[in-house]
């Protein structure tokens, strides 16, 4: 794979507006270098999913638009493109909801994605390669996807995204609704996938600890803006991350309302 100059994905002062009234994302700029895992952290409603949707393309019914700024993938601008074109360009999304087609079997779910133009043999080979990462799916080939367990469905979602032969994989809330053991397992596989297939991963996570464990570089979102970024070591040592995202109070003493002044530290973000 040739190295392209500059990041694989560059987001520049992005602004996304829903229904012409609600600004979900404001002035976000970030870069995803090739071959890395980049984490996007933040609480509910911070704008993480909107960011992923903006990159992977808005559907007609969302009534959302990128109103300012741009998104460049391999040097080409892709904002406000149609989702299927972005998928064909090499970006695949593992969504948070609607992970699979509920009334199709696992095998059909893997056959549906429209990947790049290639021969049937190549396509078959890739499906098998993908299946190797998730041996469990091979046993479930003829099971209807709606009947899978949460973990199995997540595996299917990742596998069907990989079938599209993406260069950039966007993962939305991998850990949501899964037991910690399953999450660790999936994360390990994700790292393995990244290494063996040479793809770049953008990981959106509410679970900061999980994300920091695998990501090379992360951005923290709050209210639609980036408030902090850095590599995992720097973020883990940052006192605000420790307090607000990792749940480690400074000093270890029991918290009381007298410590309210600590919450004013959040204002530091915007300083």
């Amino acid at each position: 794979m040739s190295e392209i100059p500059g990041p694989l994905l560059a987001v520049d002062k992005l602004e996304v507006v829903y229904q012409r009234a609600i600004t979900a994302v404001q002035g976000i700029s970030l870069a995803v270098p090739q071959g890395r895992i980049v984490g996007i952290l933040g609480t509910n409603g911070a704008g993480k999913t909107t960011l992923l949707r903006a990159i992977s393309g808005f559907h007609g019914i969302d009534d959302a638009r990128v109103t300012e700024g741009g998104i460049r993938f391999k040097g080409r601008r892709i904002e406000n493109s149609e989702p299927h074109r972005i998928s064909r360009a090499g970006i695949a999304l593992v969504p948070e909801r609607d992970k699979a087609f509920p009334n199709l079997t696992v095998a059909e779910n893997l056959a549906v994605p429209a990947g790049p133009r290639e021969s049937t043999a190549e396509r078959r080979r890739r499906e098998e390669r993908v299946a190797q990462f998730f041996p469990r799916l091979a046993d479930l080939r003829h099971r209807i996807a709606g009947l899978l367990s949460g973990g199995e469905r997540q595996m299917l979602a990742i596998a069907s995204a990989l079938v599209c032969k993406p260069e950039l994989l966007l993962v939305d809330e991998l850990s949501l609704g899964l037991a910690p053991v399953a999450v660790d397992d999936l994360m390990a596989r994700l790292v393995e996938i990244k290494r063996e297939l040479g793809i770049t991963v953008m990981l959106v996570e509410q679970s900061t600890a999980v994300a920091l464990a695998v990501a090379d570089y992360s951005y923290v979102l709050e209210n639609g803006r980036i408030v902090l970024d850095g590599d995992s070591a720097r973020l883990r040592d940052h006192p605000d991350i420790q307090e607000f995202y990792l749940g480690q109070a400074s000093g270890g003493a029991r918290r009381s309302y007298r410590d309210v002044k600590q919450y004013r530290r959040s204002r530091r973000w915007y300083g």
Partner: protein
Amino acid sequence: MQLAVNIVVLAAIYALIACGYVLVYRVSRVLNLAHGELMMLGAYLLVMTAASFSSHWLIAIAAAVGLSLLVGVLVYLFLMRKMTGEMVLAAVLTTVALGILLRGLMVLIWSAQQQYPAQRLEITNFAIALPGGARISLCAAMLVAATALVYGALFAFLRFGRWGLRMRAAGQSPLLAAQRGINLHAVYALAWGLSTLTGALAGILIALDSGLDQTMAIIGLKAFPAALVGGLDSLVGALAGSLIVATAEVLLIHYVDPLLSEVVPFLVLIAMLVVRPWGLFGTREELDRV
């Protein structure tokens, strides 16, 4: 015995028309109330091609069917595509308006006179004798055969074909389908094209059997309860619904009152809406998707 034959023929008619409703609804969640008019358009296209290919009936029919496929695709691309982001009800009303527009245009182009394409194509619609003293006309028999063929082909296509799989996927989750590289507009256009094709086939065979006039669109509308009774997103349901509605209609006309013919399908519809609105084989959650 003749009653049974009548039921089979009517059920085949309804089924062939109903699968058009199901195709469009299942894939794009839109109820195409212009289906009856599109069906009629197919028959009028046969009148047109019959003038050019009057001695080659097979070519005339094939040409008309092919043109109808094109019409369906164009209807999606130029009209329905603009309504994909809107409320479903607005899209349905657009199809109603389209039906009205087509109705007017067809009369303007071809006049409201009754047409007999079978005569023009020199097809003699002779009666075939069946056991039990029943009779069936050639075109009616062709229609039954065509319905069987179409359903077989559709089942195979949806189950095994690549685009059939994409159509099923797009029907279940359009956003995910788009995110997996499926061009939704292409899928919807294909669904509309197939729907118009099957409808036109029905219209053509009916026109060959008993002539073509303005009342054909009503048959199209009567087939809609058949689709709904079976479940608007189920092909199997369309078959079952057609059989039920046809049986009810033929029996009630025969034993009670011939005037009932137009209202029986809707009586069955009301009954089904009261008992089980999503139909016999439809997916239940459809109800809450307004």
